[in-house]
């Protein structure tokens, strides 16, 4: 029972990471019907920028501590968001009417570029964040089940961001415009929506969430390297499909399910089978239900 509870808690934490990254994939797919393979690498760049930011702040001989994460996260969000927009302008916008294959190749190419840049700038070694940054300690819940401070912060921050995004998409004018664009570009344009502006906004929000997830993942696991974008990104992408790609609540649900299933699989079967379980889950879902779990509500798709 305690093992189950602890596994569930760990699963939800990892699921929150998947969900945050999956949102970036799903929003872009919603408005452009494009699998943005470079999104995983933007997320990874968030982790690297977090490293640089923390190192710089520590270099200013300030007293180190968890508070440092806040300015670093904000800085990384801004830079990665701008990078996301730059990516859209250079690699995707010229291809918007070129069919389905060219944008996918372009996205894969952009992913290669971002990965190569990270490897050359930071080196191919494992990166470790400076010590004393990640908050330590934890709270004992029931019996031996412990929620670390880090887990609590991760969960609180992720749910706050997801709730914010949900409210933004559902209750603001821009959010409504976003939903309209995901349904039909031409009709949206006729209704007076600046489609390019909406796409730019999507490419600001998705990567910004990804950057936050990147820093949190690096803090949570302690170390990462330049393959993070490919490995973790692919998983997050699976989460997006699982929930129904193009659907924002779907990405959140998919992330949670994937995190929990993986964590339970690692706990009860074997850690080395957790990836197989994740991929098999995806394949099964798509065979039985090609649109993903929440994919049927086309009217509310984003």
């Amino acid at each position, binding site marked *: 029972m305690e093992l189950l509870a602890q596994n569930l808690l760990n699963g939800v934490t990892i699921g929150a990471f998947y969900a945050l990254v999956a949102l970036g994939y799903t929003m872009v797919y919603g408005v452009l*019907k494009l*699998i943005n393979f470079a999104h995983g690498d933007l997320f990874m760049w968030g982790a690297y920028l977090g490293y640089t930011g923390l190192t710089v702040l520590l270099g200013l001989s300030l007293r180190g501590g968890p508070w440092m994460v806040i300015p670093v996260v904000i800085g990384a969000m801004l830079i990665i968001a701008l990078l996301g927009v730059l990516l859209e302008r*250079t*690699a995707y*916008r*010229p*291809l*918007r*009417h*070129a*069919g*389905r*294959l*060219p*944008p*996918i*190749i*372009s996205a*894969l*190419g*952009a*992913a*290669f*570029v*971002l*990965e*190569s*840049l990270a*490897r*050359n700038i930071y080196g*191919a070694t494992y990166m470790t964040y400076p010590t004393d940054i990640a908050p330590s300690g934890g709270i004992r819940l029931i019996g031996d089940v412990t929620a670390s401070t880090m887990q609590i912060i991760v969960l609180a921050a992720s749910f706050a961001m997801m709730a914010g995004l949900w409210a933004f998409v559902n209750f603001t004018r821009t959010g409504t415009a976003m939903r309209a664009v995901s349904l039909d570009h031409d009709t949206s344009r006729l209704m007076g929506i600046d489609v390019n502006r909406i796409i730019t906004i999507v490419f600001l929000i998705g990567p910004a969430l990804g950057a936050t997830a990147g820093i949190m993942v690096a803090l949570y696991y302690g170390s990462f390297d330049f393959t993070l974008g*490919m490995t973790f990104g*692919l998983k997050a*992408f*699976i989460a997006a*499909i699982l929930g129904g*790609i193009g659907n924002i609540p779907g990405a959140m649900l998919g992330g949670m399910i994937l995190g929990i299933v993986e964590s339970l699989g690692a706990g009860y079967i074997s850690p*080395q*089978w957790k*990836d*197989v379980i994740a*991929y*098999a889950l*995806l*394949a099964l879902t*798509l*065979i039985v239900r*090609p649109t993903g779990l929440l994919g049927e509500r086309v009217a509310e798709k984003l």
Partner: protein
Amino acid sequence: MMKANGLSGALTRLRRIPAIYWSIALLVIGIALPLAIDNNYIRAVLWEAGIYVLLGLSLNIIVGYAGMFQLGHAAFYAIGAYTMAILNIYLHVPIFIGMLAAIIVSGVAGFVITRPILHLRGDYLAIVTIAFGEIVRMLLVNNIGGITGGANGLFGIEQPSLFGFSFHTTLSHYYLVLFFVVITIVAMRRLENSRLGRAWTYVREDELAAEAMGVNTVRVKAVAFLLGSAWAGLAGALYASRITVISPDLGRFLESVIIFCIVVLGGTGSIPGVFVGTVGMVILPELFRFVKDWRDGFVGLAMVLMMIFRPMGLWPSRRVAMEMGEDETKAVTPAA
């Protein structure tokens, strides 16, 4: 844009030369080049290119002819290599019989695995194939059945021999691959214009209309996966027979991406396109090895630029070119 026009123009003029002259010229170069260059490194690069041409041609059936996204093709490359290696190492089956087994096992695996997902369209198919590719790789890493050697893979595969001739030099392996490349191209040419090939084109262009005209679309697609996977298995077996050491890395996602790009960069459905794509994705990066870690970055940049300036590929098939209009610059419509 001016530069792109110049390049496109030159390529268009080159493409007007009839295919038969190209084939003969390429074959002569293919036979003579490694003899002229007495350098084992260059020969090994050419051999590797040959393997990728085979992989590209095999994926071309699925992506080019039948128009389905397959982003897990490397899995069947790995399955072929492992089939042959396991048969040879544990049961001492001769390499060439092992190759035959590799073709059969990969083909059957391709058929069985993809059969339940054929109803998925476009992007979804691409995603499930990524998942299947990763599952195959993870099964190999996890040492399934205790015979795949886990993450370290297998070693000690014999060199092939035929009628007393033993293939142990790079050159002999190169000619072995070249032999299969030539056979494959002849087979593809005939396939392209066969009843099956035309059915693939039909399914690619309009699945609904094809079905209405009596084409059994599911069967036609399944056969594409069967043949494509089988041929990838052959490439895997050929790879394993020279390198003699294989690991689950053969089936990683990056490998699938490279094969996919070979097909698309050259122009989907085009046999010369596969050669052009191989030059771009395998030979040039190999020759630019001195830029080391920047190599992948340059490949990526080239992929983005290529898609922006020439989205139909460097050497599109005649059918695709006709569909998209001979004036290839038209294919790039500026964003509204």
